[in-house]
């Protein structure tokens, strides 16, 4: 074997070359494959088919992922008001209106809503700046997003009062954003709904005939509610009238048992079920078929508020006897049959539009119009016409009818008590623990810790 003496001139240039190449780094070597089970944001908004899945994704997240939109916005305000009680200590803080600032449910509804809103704002931003879409498609996609944005902000501002009005996906800006007044939030809600109303399809073609995605009417129906909440009686009446007059698509179910069935004519907007084939709401509130132990039960005040002969009591309430006590529980949703898809979780339905118009008419002094609308709802429940004959008694009659018709749906009772200014009187009389500041839930403490610009609601 021959070993030569070292000669620097041979190896030094080679070494230098290797060092230069490697130390400089080559970007190509670390260019990675995109995640094949996920989509990179930059390619999502380049064709209409993919964009459509982002819109569907918004619904899918609300319907399947977030407890807030699966049942919490119905149950938790039910405790805060005087509709629901719970066997066990889990929800005492709501029932006693003493919600700790770190409460899980308050945090969950807040954070879930903003998670949905991030998706909504991503779609709006992505579609606005994207490519490969027609103008009509663009506007429809944005309108869907804006409808859901309005829906979420409606609940946020009603439950928490002033909330951050997040309209973009800019993390730096959004993470330090302070609260906007409820009025400002409503202004945005109305603008979003008006855009949705003028850009969404009139029919349910976007969801293949199922009433599971918003159409123009969904925007109209929510707009009617928003006008009612903001005291814009004329507009509330006008929007509700548009809904009630749309006979081609909507009519009240004659049989109370079919009000929550998939895509019935009373439904304006519903969520699909997940693979279980029944609503999560039913799964949550119905007592276990085997254990037969009550969990979510109705307050005596609510049970007693049903008039004699009200078919809704027979059809929408059920009871069980445990240890000698009779417990009533919500029975609007009845099905827990795997795969049956007998019911869809309903967000908006026509009956509310009658009651919106009744209230708007009463507020405007249209006594007979208000009576007529109330009677439509009462007659369907097997009750006679209302006896209310002046504005005050009519408003009370509307409130009573809303309490019964819309009980345990999307927090109507809680929101109605608050917006009509009767919460203090009604709940103060029923609950010793009530204080006036309880009308707003606390801003979740973790959020105040994370964003110093947030201000806690009074009383917390």
């Amino acid at each position, binding site marked *: 074997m021959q070993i030569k003496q070292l000669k620097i001139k041979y190896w030094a240039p080679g070494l230098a070359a290797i060092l230069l190449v490697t130390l400089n780094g080559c970007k190509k070597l670390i260019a990675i494959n995109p995640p094949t089970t996920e989509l990179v944001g930059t390619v999502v908004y380049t064709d209409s088919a993919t964009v459509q*899945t982002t819109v569907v994704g918004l619904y899918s997240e609300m319907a399947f992922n977030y407890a807030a939109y699966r049942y919490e916005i119905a149950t938790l305000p039910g405790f805060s008001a005087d509709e629901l009680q719970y066997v066990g200590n889990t929800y005492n803080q709501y029932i006693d209106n003493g919600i700790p600032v770190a409460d899980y449910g308050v945090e969950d509804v807040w954070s879930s809503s903003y998670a949905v809103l991030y998706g909504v704002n991503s779609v709006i931003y992505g579609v606005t700046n994207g490519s490969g879409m027609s103008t009509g498609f663009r506007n429809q996609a944005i309108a869907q997003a804006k409808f859901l944005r309005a829906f979420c902000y409606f609940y946020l501002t009603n439950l928490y009062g002033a909330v951050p009005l997040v309209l973009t996906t800019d993390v730096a800006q959004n993470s330090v954003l302070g609260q906007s007044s409820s009025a400002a939030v409503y202004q945005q809600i109305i603008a979003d709904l008006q855009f949705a109303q003028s850009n969404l399809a009139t029919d349910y073609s976007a969801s293949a005939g199922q009433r599971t995605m918003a159409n123009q009417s969904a925007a109209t129906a929510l707009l009617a509610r928003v006008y009612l909440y903001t005291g814009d009686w004329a507009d509330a009446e006008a929007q509700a009238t548009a809904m009630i007059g749309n006979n081609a698509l909507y009519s009240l179910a004659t049989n109370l048992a079919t009000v929550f069935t998939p895509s019935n004519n009373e439904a304006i907007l519903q969520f699909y079920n997940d693979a279980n084939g029944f609503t999560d709401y039913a799964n949550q509130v119905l007592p276990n078929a085997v254990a037969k132990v009550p969990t979510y039960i109705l307050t005596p005040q609510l049970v007693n508020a049903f008039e004699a002969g009200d078919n809704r009591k027979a059809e929408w309430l059920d009871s069980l006897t445990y240890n000698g006590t009779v417990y009533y529980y919500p029975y609007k949703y009845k099905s827990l049959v795997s795969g049956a898809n007998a019911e869809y979780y309903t967000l908006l339905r026509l009956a509310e539009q009658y009651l919106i118009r009744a209230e708007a008419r009463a507020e405007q002094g249209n006594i007979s119009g208000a009576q007529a609308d109330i009677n439509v709802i009462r007659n369907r429940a097997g009750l006679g016409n209302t006896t209310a004959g002046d504005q005050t008694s009519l408003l009370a009659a509307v409130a009573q009818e809303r309490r019964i018709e819309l009980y345990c749906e999307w927090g109507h009772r809680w929101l109605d008590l608050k917006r009509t200014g009767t919460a203090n009187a009604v709940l103060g009389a029923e609950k010793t623990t009530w204080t006036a500041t309880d009308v707003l839930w606390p801003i979740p403490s973790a959020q105040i810790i994370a964003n110093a610009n947030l201000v806690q609601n009074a009383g917390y």
Partner: protein
Amino acid sequence: MQLTSILLLGACLQVTAGVRAQTVSFSGKDVPLERVFVSVEKQTGYVFFFDEAVLAEARPVTVQANHMPLEVFLNTVLKEEGLKFSFQGKTIVISRRPPDPAPAVLPAEASPDPPSDLHGRVTDSAGNPLAGASVAVKGTNLVFSTNDRGDFILKGVKAPAGLVVSYIGFEPKEVTLNGKETYTIGIMLRHNNNPLDEVMIIGYGTTTRRLSTGSVDKVSTAEIEEQPVSNPILALEGRVPGLFITQTAGYEGANLTVSIRGQNGFPSGAPLYTNDPLYVVDGIPFGSAPVEQSSGAFLGAAGFSPLNTINPADIESISVLKDADATAIYGSRGANGVILITTKKGKSGNTKFSADISGGNGKVTKLMPMLNTAQYLSVRQQAFANDGVTPTVANAPDLMLWSQTAYTDFPKLLIGNTAHQSNAALSVSGGDAFTQILFSGSYHRESTVFHTNTADDIVQFHLNLNHKSHDNRFGTTASVNYNVGDNTIPNYNLSVLNYSLPPNYPLYNPNGSLYFGPGYTNPLAAFNSNYNLQSTNLLANGGFHYMLLPGLDFKANAGYNLIDSKAVIITPTSANNPLFNYFPTSQLGDNYIKTYIAEPTLDYTYVLGKGKLTALAGGTWQETQYVQPYFVLGTYTNPELATSLGGLNVLIKESGYTDYKYESGYGRLGYEWDDKYLISGNIRRDGSSRFGSDRQFGNFGSIAGAWVFSKEHFSATLFPWLSFGKLKTSYGTIGNDKIQDYSFESVYNTNGTPYGSTVGITPSNIANPYVQWEVTKKLDAAIELGFLKDRLFVSADLYRNRSGNLLGSSPLPTQAGFSSYTANLPALVQNKGIELELTSTNIKNGPLTWSTSINLTIPQNKLLAFPNLLHSPYANTYVVGQSLNLIRAFHFTGFKNGVAQVEDIEKTGVIAYGLAANGLGDQIIAGNTDPKLYGGISNTFKYKGFQLDFLFQAVKRRGFEGDITNSVTPGQGYDLPQSLLKIPFKYSATFGSPANIGYNYYAGSDAAVGDASFIRLKNVSLAYNVPAKWIRHLKMQTFQAYLHGQNLLTITHYRGMDPETQGLSLPPLKMLIAGIRTTF
């Protein structure tokens, strides 16, 4: 040309007649001489030493010999060739016979015509050639290295000259050439039994303790083999200073918590961001994150350590790299330290078979003694009396409904079984000087101590091949490890509601079915679930090196690792309480991790004066893919089809994929002057795909120096008792990119459930294009001292690591859309500490040897700074100036009528959870859970054929006492640990009673924080090597019988089950294994 041999031997020259009286048999016609030599080497164990040029001229020989004495045989064969031979130890030196008969060995006068090139060979004392030894010519830049036969040629060296011959692990030798040498020089190096000179594997090279500038510890195969563990990392517990290992549970395959020199960052829950060190197996980075949850969730089953798929028996050594100097070469991947695992290689020589068969049993180290039925019932009665409540069948079935004498020891029932372990391993190795092979296979089975008899079966194969060219310029190596595991051990830990069931709880109904009491769950139901994890691990690597020029080597290595796991959990209705409407469910998941790596390096060694310059330049490219083809959870109706996708009504389905790429260019420059002054520097540029396009690259580096002051002249005068003394220090910066892939860009994912007929997609993160490298600055200083010819060796290491720009999930107000996003946190975390090591050979003379090794680490962890901490969700977790693992507790002020009282620090009238130090509540900092010190003492005794080793592991730390924190309020319907009777609690059966609230405060107070220190007899190994003469007729070379014990004894004041796992996980098992090991 006349050739004579002179042999400059370090050892004695004489060869005993007895050995030379060996005989050989060989028959052949026209056989090349080399083949004859090979045959003789095989028959006698002698090695031939010759100049190839000499042999090239030789003619084939014809010979017939039957048991001919060796010398006669050699004379016969060589006579016709004009060659002669001589014995030098175990070497037979062949040379040309001088024309005139001359003395066989001794040198003649100087040749009139000396050759310009001197030839030589370097061997060990057994005559085995040492390939790659360096022969430096003093006073020149010349350095030669030996080829695979140990031969070197001194080209162009003119005598007189001085040679320095060195080889790692051997004592260097100086040889003076006086100009009279005209012959082949034999140089024999003595094996250096000094542990200072043992080879240590470091990043892309080797070093010795004597010459290393970095902080590296090594655990050898001998220490690993004597421990009955399936996870090789467990064998390191208590053996390496600065390395803190905690078993999360005692069942086989359970994940480990491993930290080198403390916790550098915040545990953020992201699967990839851990404090784990980098594991490198034969040059391939090895993922340590549990495989089955590598990408996407696998509900319920967490924590199967992939390291469990490495066979401890295949490991040659494990190096633990700690400081900047040692870890810098691994760059960003090594920020938390590096654990290098090197598997065994084939060895040249006769084909050697070895077999190792063992078996044994294991039990839980300790079960918490609970109240018996009479004690329990009396507590209950007292509780009802205290509360003024009358027990009824509804509120006290234990008092009113069930037998008052029945007794079940629930901890014993649930985890009190005996685990069985059996192992069988076979290996074969052999080869010649150019090619070596090692092939081994093993089987391992270990069952659990759980109520059900489930087990982990592992089958492993290991193949290693090495080949070198005859001129030693080219070499190639390949190795393959393949491991198949079938684990049915559930990830089962005790829960307070099952091990503390009332001792008179009836487990079965009269009809034999499981009994579920009102409000109670039958703990045996959980064992009706079936758990199965099938894993395979393929680790293959190969490479070649080519010597471009003397001293300059080009190497290229490539590796591939595939870890695949298929997990199934079937939960039938019978596994749950029938009161609730549980559907039978099945979870199926398939995950695999693929890693590719390619590493070209250029290695250069240059002798400069009395010094040696080493340079390394190289690059690394790595790709790791985490792939989850599917994960599904669904309900089934037909149990036979529970694992069939067709038989499932799928409720959740997911799949996942991430891709990670990493590249690095690096250079290392080292200089050793006279083995006295050592410096080393690293620079590197790392690129990671985890960062946005303009933040992908980071530059890092380190510098280290060492001074072997015992080589200075003053040392001999000043410290004559010192045989070795070294001071060293290093400083460096290392990056870290351990975050989720793709976090810099926005990614959309699906929740898997179609909305109607369409599967929607939603954003799954907030992109952070600004996220960049986390940087750890490591400072290290050490002193190493050897006494009594290094029989006593002491080292002390001071380190200080500071990590800033911490990568992790940065909390956000959820109004931004997510509760966190991946970002650099502004916090600064410091880990500093002292590591002490002492090794000593206490007795060496005679048949008895006794050696001791002690290591001790005193660490400290501190959050140095965290701007805006109070406005982060960490406000209730961390306090600046405190450890990251602080204990948050109320301050206990005493009992009032048996009701525990705690201090209302903020004087608000309400006891509030939250850190008083941050103004958030009434909880104080009651110390931290960091170890105050930890270490181990191991002793080895050898007496004739016997060897006894034992290792004590010691950890001093604090923690919540397990008996308090893992109990319910005394008097409620659950059993209590015996130790709770000693605390004057007022018993109460009622929720929300003052006694109940007081107990909860107490359980979270400083009174419940106790000493979780322990000293554990971690390992005992007793082996007996049967004398060779007894087994020779069985053709065996060695035969060993052994007993290995693990965790045999634990000394602790800790009042829970086990001070190491704490909590309610299965404690580490006490294992005793007996086996035999033989080679033939």
